[in-house]
């Protein structure tokens, strides 16, 4: 797809650790278009965050990243480090789970929002401050002109996350990376932030990659979704297709594991065991040891391919036709 804002293909991340190499991400392909939201879903250790950090050149030093990354049409991985940094600063905004990892506690919020404008857009200090007030107002900070000189500790968690979103939007980025941005927030605050990002996206045409473990959030925000398990995509496609007709037993199980309000209190569907260690991945399908469907010896020993089941809906399986045994 030529008009992708960000496209990764064959992205692989191996991290050198004391216990030997850990394969965090293995051959991942996805892309996101302008104005669209891609949701990356998975449990901790699935590689969802690492794949995005690697794609934007933010993987830890110990990581070896291979594969291709195209940002706004240019080969991002081939760029020298300083140009990469500038391109990222200019075109990509980041919102992480804990707003305090992005905020400097000893600088006023206005200064922090203004900084990006000065650095990447060449605004004067005065113009950047005016712009900071506009942005704080845009993200719904009440009386932004008064609060521009306040410090992060004077804001609540939800308000801090709004400040971080204002920082991320300061350069009118083409791409917004949101890594579990609402996980630490209360549900009513989460609803405010989700609404805010959707609204800004509509107005500014930003492409969004939203990383989350919450399938409810995904259903509300995503156009396309990629479900990750043990470093690989096990299912991806348009959000309705994946939620309505999940083709991978892992996706089905995740959808069924969540208590549904109003459904009464029977036992929940669980997935036995825990995900494999990235140091010691099974030879075949990484989900095989926990799989409720439990395919055959082929599943155990060979890696199933990611195959199309309908249109853009892909499932990693040897048996794309077979309806899954476990359902919602």
């Amino acid at each position, binding site marked *: 797809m030529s008009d992708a804002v960000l496209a990764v293909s064959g992205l692989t991340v191996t991290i050198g650790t004391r216990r030997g190499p850990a394969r965090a991400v293995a051959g991942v392909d996805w892309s996101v278009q302008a104005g669209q939201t891609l949701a990356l879903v998975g449990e901790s250790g699935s590689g969802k965050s690492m794949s995005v950090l690697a794609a934007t050149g933010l993987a830890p030093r110990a990581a070896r990243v291979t594969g291709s990354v195209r940002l706004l049409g240019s080969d991002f991985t081939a760029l020298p480090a300083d140009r990469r940094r500038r391109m990222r600063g200019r075109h990509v905004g980041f919102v992480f789970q804990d707003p305090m990892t992005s905020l400097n506690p000893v600088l006023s919020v206005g200064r922090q929002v203004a900084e990006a404008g000065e650095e990447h857009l060449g605004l004067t200090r005065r113009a950047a401050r005016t712009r900071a007030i506009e942005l704080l107002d845009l993200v719904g900070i009440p009386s932004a002109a008064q609060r521009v000189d306040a410090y992060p500790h004077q804001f609540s968690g939800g308000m801090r996350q709004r400040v971080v979103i204002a920082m991320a939007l300061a350069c009118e980025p083409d791409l917004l990376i949101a890594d579990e941005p609402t996980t630490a927030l209360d549900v009513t605050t989460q609803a405010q932030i989700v609404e805010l990002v959707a609204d800004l996206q509509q107005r500014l045409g930003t492409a969004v990659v939203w990383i989350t473990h919450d399938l409810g959030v995904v*259903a509300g925000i995503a156009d396309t979704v990629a479900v990750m398990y043990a470093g690989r995509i096990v299912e991806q496609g348009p959000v309705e297709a994946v939620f309505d007709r999940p083709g991978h037993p892992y996706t089905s199980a995740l959808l069924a594991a969540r*208590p549904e309000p109003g459904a009464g209190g029977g036992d929940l569907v669980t997935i036995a065991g825990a995900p494999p260690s990235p140091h010691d991945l099974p030879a075949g399908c990484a989900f095989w040891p926990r799989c409720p469907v439990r395919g055959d010896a082929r599943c155990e020993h060979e890696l199933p391919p990611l195959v199309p089941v309908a249109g853009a809906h892909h499932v990693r399986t040897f048996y794309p036709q077979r309806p899954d045994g476990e359902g919602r």
Partner: protein
Amino acid sequence: MKRGEVQVPMQRGSADVVAELDDLRVWFPTSAGVVRAVDGVSLQVRRGETLGLVGESGSGKSTTGLALLRLVDPTTGSVRVAGQDVTGWSRRQLRALRRRVAMVFQDPQASLDPRRTVGSSIAEPLIVHRLVDSSAARRRRVEELLDAVGLRRDLADRHPHELSGGQRQRVGIARALAGEPDLIVLDEPIASLDLSVQAQIMNLLRGLQRDLGLTYLFIAHDLAAVEHMSDRMAVMYLGRIVESGTPAQIWREPAHPYTAALLSAIPVADPQVERERRRVILSGDIPSPVDPPSGCRFRTRCPQARPDCAETDPALVEVAAGHRAACLYAGEAVRAMRVS
């Protein structure tokens, strides 16, 4: 796989009350003023039931749970456990209380001693409360408890860092079971676990309750989890209970505008539903517990607030059998929210 539809409200007499809070207030003096963490909460936990307590950060739900163990001191009001008023109990007497009421915390990593083996952590309450008289008996009891929570016996010799998050939470549960308590306070027991592991722990807790006749106070911010786990539930906001009832009553007919907003904020894992959904988006943040609003505490964020909401502090009154709400316009306000 369809889940059971049975939703029978518990009908029990007051003789079966295991723990009871009466008009509890827990205030903390701080440099910024007095924080009214809990500000007039009354509740009863009945034998064999799960009472769910749901609320957002700052609602006072955890402090309420801590008060039942007297891990915080009530400013006013009373705490009764197993028929005894424990509000004024001394430190020495409290040791007996801690056997009757056990607690499971959110982060098992933080609540387990990293230098102790799993077996020794589970055995600690057995020793403190003198429940076993020999090391052989102690080992047997630890093995029983490991079996009960679905852990292999050989894990007794491991240290917490060698376990997964789900396994550590099982150890926390085994430790809570050790003293055969009358009540287990579960404070956000699944909040730090992955989704598939959350389901395992919820199933385990329900299974143990069925087999051992346990009584739970289940505290969480996750309304769907509280609904799933509870026989009765209470919704807290800014130090008060604003609504209580059965999960079915709360889900189908929320009577308090805050509950309705909370329900509408929960994302549902269905793209069609989400697309057509009209959310009640609350404005602003929860007010400071140092200086709560006059009258109804929710009125500053309530989409249906009226002038007299600032004057009258609404009492928690019955709106249907076993269903209570603290709103001057209970029911009516929620209906108006749906229309607008």
